[in-house]
């Protein structure tokens, strides 16, 4: 195998980028597409900082070969909201003290979004399970769990 053009949908836009067979999705997103919100904390799928949503599922992009994303729909934290139209998860993370150093935050939000996209009323256990692959060393997870729960409520009420 040699380098080829990867075509996929990234944050709603059709994106083409040259990738090598050995490239992992995290490196393509970070280094070639400049999406620094996709963090790299271990490179072994163990910390969750690089979590993105691929075809509706939260994946650790550091162990997904980039070529696996051919034709896929990929969402990163950069694509879910911003000033004026923050995603409810971004709002609740900001308001409820769920952010400290911020390195785990994008991946944590993406794991939570993958859950809320599929489950409008998650239980506490479901929230915990959804983010259990995302390590946070600052918060003790207390305010993160509260923020996910609050966002779920807000999304449901907003509909």
């Amino acid at each position, binding site marked *: 195998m040699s380098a080829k053009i990867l075509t996929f949908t990234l944050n709603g836009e059709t994106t083409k980028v040259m990738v090598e067979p050995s490239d992992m999705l995290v490196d393509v997103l*970070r280094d070639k597409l400049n*999406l*620094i*919100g*996709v*963090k*790299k*904390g*271990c*490179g*072994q799928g*163990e*910390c969750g*900082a690089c979590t993105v949503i691929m075809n509706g599922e939260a994946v650790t992009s550091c162990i997904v070969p980039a070529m696996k994303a051919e034709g896929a729909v990929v969402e*990163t*934290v*950069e694509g879910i*909201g*911003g*000033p004026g139209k*923050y995603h409810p998860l*971004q709002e609740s*993370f*900001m*308001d*409820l*003290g769920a*952010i*400290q*150093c*911020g*390195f*785990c*935050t*994008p991946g944590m*939000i993406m794991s939570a979004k993958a859950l809320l996209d599929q489950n409008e009323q998650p239980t506490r256990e479901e*929230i*915990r*399970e959804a*983010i*259990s*692959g*995302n*390590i*946070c*060393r*600052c*918060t*003790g*997870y*207390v*305010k*993160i*769990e509260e923020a996910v729960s609050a966002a779920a409520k807000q999304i449901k009420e907003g509909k």
Partner: protein
Amino acid sequence: MKKYNVVGHSVRRLDAAEKATGTAMFSTDFTLPGMLYGKVLRSPYAHAKIVNIDTTEAEKLPGVKAVTTYRNTPREIFNTSATMTFTVPALKPVLDQYIFDNVVRYVGDEVAAVAAVSEEIAEEALQLIKVEYEELPTVFDPLEAMKPEAPVIHADCGEGKNIPGEIIKIPVGDLKKGFEECDVIIEKRFLLPIVKQVQMETQAAVAQVGVDGKITVWSTTQTPHPTRMIIAKIFGVPNSKIRVLNPPYVGGGFGVRIGLSAKAEPIAVALAMQAGKPVKIVYSRKEDFIASDTRHGGYVTVKLGAKKDGTFHALDLRAALNGGAYCSFSTETPGVLGAMGLSVYRIPNQSYFGHSVYTNTTPAGAMRGFGNPQAMFPIESVVDMLAEELGMDPLELRLKNIMKVGDPWCLPYPCNSTGLAECIEKGAKSIGWERRGRLNQPGAKKLRGIGVGVGTHCSNSWPFCVDYDNAIVTVQQDGSIHLASGVPDIGTGTSTALPQLAAEVLGVKLEEVSLTFGDTLSTPFDIGSHASRTCYAAGTAVVAAAKDARKQLLEYAGDFLKVSPERLEIKDSLIYITGQELVGDCAGTGVCQSGEERKSVTLQELAYHAHLRNKQFIGVGRIVPENAPPWHAHFAEVEVDTETGQVKVIKVVAAHDVGKAINPIIVEGQIEGGVLQGVGYAVTEEIRYDAKGRQLHNSLHKYMLLTAEDVPEIEAILIEANEPSGPFGAKGVGEAGLVPTAGAISNAVYNATGLRFYDIPLTEEKVFKALKGDGPATY
């Protein structure tokens, strides 16, 4: 209690939006045009001499731009820690590291580095470096390393075999006589594990060396200014030609980069000098584990004596910590262990004797709590044992003996405030202390227990280490405020709390204040973020600078409004004459007629008025912080599965005297995060070594961090026993959540099972073996 406009409010963090949208820049995200990637060759041996090193093939590999070893880098000795390269007289700095040496002293020690156009080529080049090692004898246990037959790891040890720096001795009263006068004495030795900070962003640095010789380093350091001094010393370049900064965010710290980020900065600079191009080094997670400072493990002995009525009368505390292969913080850590361990209870006769010992393991350095957790798990265990011996309730015994305001203690600053009694009372109520002893049905296989642990800490490191702060407040021409402080924000909320302090003093809304931080070029010297000091000490400098600017503003406004400045007040950027009706005043309307009597003026109008007359208001704060003890009582409820040995922590109540919470939600977050790290310290986390000195827990998969599914209920209770020396009454909080947690949990396990453990973590294996008849191990 006084109400403030900005201080004491849980405002949204000023860095929240960047961090929630993925736009926040960290060192690992930072790139420069033409940048190369650096990789480090590390020793596979725990102790060896490098007989020969041949880099010829590596240099020939296309894409390789620089290869560095001990032969072509400065032979300048240093210490990676912020405090020890330039320590406080009369202490003598312990300098024992070079960028690269011809002897390696632990598995992971730096041998060589390569800079290349890609990480892959740099990795490939490392494989081409031929190193011939001559293995040397090794030692991994601190007690073994002090024996005459142990190998010498560093020769220059004045106090004893392999002991770095000074042995810390703290004598109070008459220890021998004190114990003779005791009715009950308990003495036990404890074994503490080696654990890791595991901050989410690994060690990283990007170095650029200009054609004019100026050096710029973007890095993960918690202390940009001292780090600049260390780099200046290593490379023989003036401080003024070096800039060290965070870009500006740092993915956690917990002590691991107080000073250099392991050796990321000097290696990146050395490679950049040789290559003539910027070089980026990002440690892999494995490198972060094996080649960046751990917490000190080791042995701590507690001998505590009391009178029949429970009055503590004598305490002998001794520590021999595993310092690993290089000193780093190995003299200060045992110092804090002793100083804090002796300061929780009022005991007339005390002694501390403690030090570290070099071994062939990863260097041990600073980690949240800094020796204090190593003191308090043993001390709080022995206090509970003493309570049982005396037939007293553990809370009653503690309340009888805890330090009170004005009590004499060994610390060189006064105890001005303590809310510890209130912490104990409120925490006990919340956990339901009265349920203790009635938690289990006969024959139950899962046993519940409740335990307590208390403690104190510091709010900076003065007068033990160099520790001072500066801050500058400049009123901009439109009346908005710019604040400059040299501290970083490693996640603790500095970049929100400091502007809150400035806004409160200046009488402006928070959004009027912007902060420059974590950059040696645009801020005056600040020692940095460590020792639970940032809000307390850097905050004191910010308050001083804001007061200075406020004074200038009010003097100018006094002339402007033709009243004495003492009569003026500022609120929401409006300077007004106190006690006068503001209705009808023209300030801020833009339609003031000349000659009209003014009762107020906006900062915007005043600053621009001054600007037109060639004047800016600049407030300067230059302070040496006092120091102050935060206090805390943790209560843990656990459930021990007697069939598996699993210790499940059900709930932790963490009551903390924080002086004053400048931003309560941030303070709660600090406590909750500290508590979970403490639960990990007590129950799961540990790095062990094999017989060759290789870490057995060198990845997130192997190192047992708690996840969201393992979190107990954590209740943070804030007690605000106003601290007179702190900004708006605040004192340190960052480290405190970790300090008493392991003691509380181990005491709860005893309460559940009757098994007293003398070592942590309380893993399933350890507890299971103890339950099945072996009993807990002793040391």
